[in-house]
């Protein structure tokens, strides 16, 4: 077990190092004209040279790489050309927003995904199962950005159930930042109006991401439950005369949980991906929207910063899943 732990942690370090190297190549080696993108292609030559010097683009690639690595180790990605603030400062503001949205929708997805998945497996091939299968297949086929637009059209414009977008109503100011999660910070500060308003703004994007994640978790729960319900020991439990509820929850679900945990980890990665599109649609000021705006304005430093941060989160969630997996399933020997 310890050997596996060390091996897995080493892999994590290698992957992070690789990620950083890939982003370096993507940002420093491939782009033809990063300076032109910032100040326009017809800018005077002196300005271009000055800019190149500022960005360190006049150095040889090897030196640029070392400079770049040094910066990342100190969590310094330089200045964002678009916002005129240090990238790490921007990320400190936007990242908690994305995490708050991701955790909100993940909790929706875990609750509904598991419940619907269990019902689906128990009522296999009956009406509830068929409904839930179509519901989850539509969910995994749904383009998140389009679902977001439909929500705005129907839930905001026609029904008035959700706000048009953003993270707080313009009339309210953000709570004093402690964790960066508005829900938590407003509670700590005792600003209950802010709390409800922040929650109200999470509903739209949260439901969009939540539905899609629910679909993934529900599918895995169903198939994993079906597999377990076919096992001998479940039959034995039934023959023993145990109540069906106990058989399903205490005997079957406990063992069906392992693939579900894996899926929850994987779906965290999908959430980071989906947040890019969903935040853009809802104008939610998170890391995803920040990344998109940086991409579109070719703001290199903030592109590198946000991609690196997202990739680290993703790799971390994979690491946690792998370790949980080893912990949950005693049959696995490393």
């Amino acid at each position: 077990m310890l050997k596996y732990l060390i091996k897995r942690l080493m892999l994590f370090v290698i992957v992070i190092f690789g990620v950083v190297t890939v982003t370096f190549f993507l940002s420093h080696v491939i782009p033809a004209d990063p300076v032109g993108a910032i100040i326009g292609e017809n800018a005077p030559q002196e300005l271009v040279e000055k800019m190149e010097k500022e960005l360190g683009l006049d150095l040889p690639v090897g030196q640029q790489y070392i400079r770049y690595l040094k910066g990342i180790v100190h969590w310094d990605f330089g200045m964002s050309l678009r916002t005129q603030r240090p990238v790490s400062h921007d990320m400190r503001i936007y990242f908690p927003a994305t995490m708050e949205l991701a955790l909100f929708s993940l909790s929706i997805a875990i609750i509904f995904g598991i419940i619907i998945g269990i019902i689906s497996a128990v009522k296999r091939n009956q009406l509830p199962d068929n409904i839930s299968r179509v519901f989850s297949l539509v969910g995994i086929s749904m383009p998140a950005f389009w679902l977001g637009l439909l929500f705005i059209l129907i839930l905001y414009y026609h029904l008035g159930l959700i706000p048009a977008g953003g993270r707080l109503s313009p009339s309210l100011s953000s709570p004093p930042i402690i964790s960066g999660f508005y829900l938590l910070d407003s509670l700590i500060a005792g600003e209950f109006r802010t709390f409800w308003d922040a929650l109200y703004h999470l509903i739209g994007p949260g439901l969009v991401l939540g539905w899609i994640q629910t679909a993934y978790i529900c599918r895995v729960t169903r198939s994993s439950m079906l597999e377990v319900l076919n096992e001998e020991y479940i039959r034995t439990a039934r023959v023993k005369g145990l109540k069906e509820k106990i058989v399903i929850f205490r005997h079957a679900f406990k063992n069906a949980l392992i693939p579900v945990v894996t899926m929850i980890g994987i779906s965290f990665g999908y959430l980071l991906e989906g947040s890019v599109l969903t935040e853009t649609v809802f104008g939610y000021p998170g890391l995803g929207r920040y990344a998109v705006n940086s991409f579109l304005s070719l703001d290199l430093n903030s592109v590198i910063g946000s991609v690196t941060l997202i990739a680290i989160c993703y790799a971390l969630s994979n690491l946690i899943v792998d370790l949980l997996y080893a912990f949950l399933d005693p049959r696995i020997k490393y």
Partner: protein
Amino acid sequence: MNKDISQNWITSLKNRHSSEISDIKETLYLIKKSPLTMIGLTLILILVIVAIFAPYIAPHDPVTMHLDKRLAPPSKDHLLGTDELGRDILSRIIYGAGVALKIMLIVLAIDLPLGILLGLIAGYFGGWIDEIIMRIADIFMAFPRLILAMAIGAALGPNLRNTMIAIALTMWPIYARLARGETLSIKERTFIEAERALGTSNLKILISNILPLCFSTLIVRATLDMGNIIRIAAGMSFLGLGAQPPTPDWGLMISSGRNFLINQWWIPTFPGFAILLTVFGFNLLGDGIRDISDPHLRRGKK
């Protein structure tokens, strides 16, 4: 003479290992028995037919602007209405089918061979080659796909060709991992050892013995990914990093129709249905094919 006998023996060994899905008759029978798979297959067939015959089906030209007819709601003349430049939305959706299929096929045509090649090499030769290839695969898999595709797309420059390259580069590790796993198990089998004993070259063993046996697994996986490719490409176009105007791309249509969501809801809404139905169809089909290729389920259904 002697060589013939040994070749026959190898063939008989091989047949014992040939995969289950290659039994086409039975596969078709199982597809017919599953209504959801049939729905998926039908949706995809419709998509393909629409894409091929677009010029004959579409009532209008997809790119010609009619500024006098802009923002027209759905009517008899324009069944799904017109967009902000007076172009017929139905016709653009019909032509968009071809764009979506083309993107998907090109992405697969890049990443399948790339992934298979690297996976075969890693699995067959093992050692440090295996280690290097698989660690690179790990690194590429450490990015959420859309994020990596966005980063590659932005670095190469935002256009459709680069989007396809970008998506392909994010997907090869899946196929490499699968091909490697299959190779690892196949290479231990008797008939491969027999081939080696006969002095067949590594290259020939890889191409004529191992590759065909990997195929069914990889095809199943590719079917499962088809919908995903279309969805990611649509997302990139929506963000402005994929197809550029005036391409009748579904994601791009939603992106440019976004500003008209409230008052001209039909502009961004209908292309979204096209994406949803297409991805839905591919997912149904992929699910069905996966179930059929699973020997566990196959036996259960007989």
